[in-house]
């Protein structure tokens, strides 16, 4: 098993005819992800790398009833409408890659998804990958490898960073989820942790956090409340960030001693999380605890 995405994930790409949409269709296919259809209103009848394009999600579903995930790669002004279309047509997993989506649109998407029981990942995310099985996202598949560590991160590039460092150290991943870097996300870190709880393939979880917000505090609370059965490891970025400097992510800002790296690390430790000071230490901790599965190291690393 893995969470949310596996060999049976069948994807529709909304915005497939765009520059990013078409390029990542090719990369998804190269990773053996099952991309059944694409949707761009007005481009119905065309093809992108052999994938048929439809005008609407409904039509794509009529032709390909097995579709069970959507990857949204449309520019910000079109995201709300694309997400509503995917959610209201009953697609259970919707991944929104687009950055700079207005937060009011994300709010509407998030709460509409709750009404429909849809899992939305993002926006402003690299998506989700179950290495060796499939991906719904834009991550380079070969820096990830199959194994038993679940990865949760707000930051896309940190997901690449930590997952590739694990890979190069012979530690594979079950599923890696970029929950998105915006102040409002579909799937939250706590919900992602909940998904990993019941996945037999996932033996331990890595949480990659950062300063600002209250994501890590909520995770710590959840771990205590549920007596979480699996070991969680964490790394918090921005431990030495100058106070009060906004570092790009909305919300990655420290105010009045709240949301500092130190307070987050302390809180997570209190909940039994193994907290690393550096990224290298994080990998070493996991290695020392015997989670490596050396045979997963990618062949092309000589």
């Amino acid at each position, binding site marked *: 098993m893995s969470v949310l995405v596996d060999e049976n994930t069948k994807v529709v790409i909304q915005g497939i005819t765009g520059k990013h949409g078409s390029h990542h269709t090719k990369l998804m296919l190269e990773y053996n992800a099952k991309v059944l259809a694409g949707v761009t209103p007005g481009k119905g009848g065309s093809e992108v790398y052999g994938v048929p394009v439809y005008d609407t999600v409904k039509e794509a579903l009529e032709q390909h009833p097995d579709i069970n995930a959507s990857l949204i790669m449309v520019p910000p002004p079109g995201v709300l409408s694309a997400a509503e279309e995917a959610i209201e047509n009953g697609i259970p997993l919707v991944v929104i890659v687009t950055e700079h989506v207005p*937060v*009011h649109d994300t709010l509407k998407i998030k709460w509409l998804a709750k009404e429909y029981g849809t899992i939305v990942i993002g926006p402003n995310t690299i998506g989700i990958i179950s290495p060796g099985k499939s991906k719904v996202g834009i991550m380079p598949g070969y820096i990830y490898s199959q194994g038993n560590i679940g990865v949760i991160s*707000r930051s896309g590039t940190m997901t*690449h960073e930590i997952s590739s460092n694990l890979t190069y150290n012979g530690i594979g991943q079950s599923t890696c989820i970029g929950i998105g870097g915006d102040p409002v996300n579909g799937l939250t870190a706590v919900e992602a942790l909940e998904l990993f709880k019941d996945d037999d393939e996932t033996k331990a979880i890595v949480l990659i956090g950062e300063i600002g917000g209250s994501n890590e505090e909520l995770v710590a609370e959840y771990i205590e409340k549920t007596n979480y059965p699996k070991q969680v490891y964490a*790394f918090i*970025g921005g431990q030495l960030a100058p106070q009060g400097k906004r*570092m*790009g*992510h909305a919300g990655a800002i420290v105010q009045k001693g709240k949301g500092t790296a130190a307070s987050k690390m302390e809180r997570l430790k209190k909940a039994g999380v193994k907290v690393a000071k*550096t990224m290298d230490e994080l990998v070493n901790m996991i290695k020392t605890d015997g989670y490596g599965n050396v045979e997963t190291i990618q062949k092309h690393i000589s």
Partner: protein
Amino acid sequence: MYEIEGKAIFKSYGIPIPRGEKATTPEEAKEAAEKIGSEVVLKAQISSGGRGKAGVVKFAKTPDEAKALAEQLLGKEVKGETVKLLLVEEKINIAKELYLGITLDPELQKPVIIGCAEGGMDIEEVAEKHPEKIVKQPLEVLKPFKIHQANDFMRQLGFHGKQLVQAGKILYGLVRVYFDYDATTVEINPLVITGDNEIIAADSKLVVDDSSSYRHPDLPWERLNENLKPLEKEAKEAGFPFVLLENNGYIGIIGGGAGVGLATMDTIYHHGGIPANFLDTGGGVTRERMAKALEVVLKTPGVKGVIANLFGGINNCAIMAQGIVDVLEKHKVDIPIVVKMRGHHQEEGWKLLEKYNVPLIKYGSTDEAAELLMKLVRERSAGNVSVG
């Protein structure tokens, strides 16, 4: 947004505001005071808060005094901003001050209305010391907010009868402003009850989500860049989040995302370096934009070395490498640039960087990249850099 702009929007949504006029010269301030015909308050229009403490809110009893005070205020420097615009307003007779605002609650992942029967001060401080004095209520984003909900909220702040109807209208208007303008925060601090029992918004704060700028072309977006330092402006115009960090910093940081930028910054400190800046490339990096990113970081005063921690996710390693070598071709770069790059089209990107002898980390960690950069910087400056 300036108070005067926020107030104009509030007024159009039925929120009462004091009578006021704008003034850009002392003469205009005098005319405004004459028109208002009572004691006035002159408020400097700047983006940052804390104007009272900065001494740029002044009271004038006569139009001549208004003119004299305007002379003092206009052109004054406050927190790096120059005062160019004044709001001249009738002086309100204050009987009571309250706080009313709407902001995004990251824990609930919903907007919340926040009210407090004690306004005019630092609401965060009140919230910390006396949480029981704060009234909070989440807003459901998929259901329109109703007048009766507004009335029931304001009832909790002590309003009743005829005044409650007035107060409810104000909150109802504020909620509509919040949604119509893609706001992340709207605030009335203070919301004033006057000696004549009128309710009036004595100040306005309206912060609009940058990502929604395409929907609000009439708002003063270009002013966001007015108070930036030239380098910050250059980065912003190219669409990059960019932060100048420590004045004594000498390491430039380019991150493929904010998260990795934060972690790279930590790593540089761990290896005894001091970061001078941080630039986040984000997605959609073209050859030209990559070159621009590196140029901005190299131009930062005092930079003796650059670390670029890049990923080909939505971006393409070959294109990013192109942008980097374009800079090396165009400028005489004589400081080390260590590139750690992996992801889509990495082989092509690596090959190009190797051709130009750019120090490259392929499979190593950020720690290794930072260590290599610090070593190269130390070698080049042969002990001239004081390393913490």
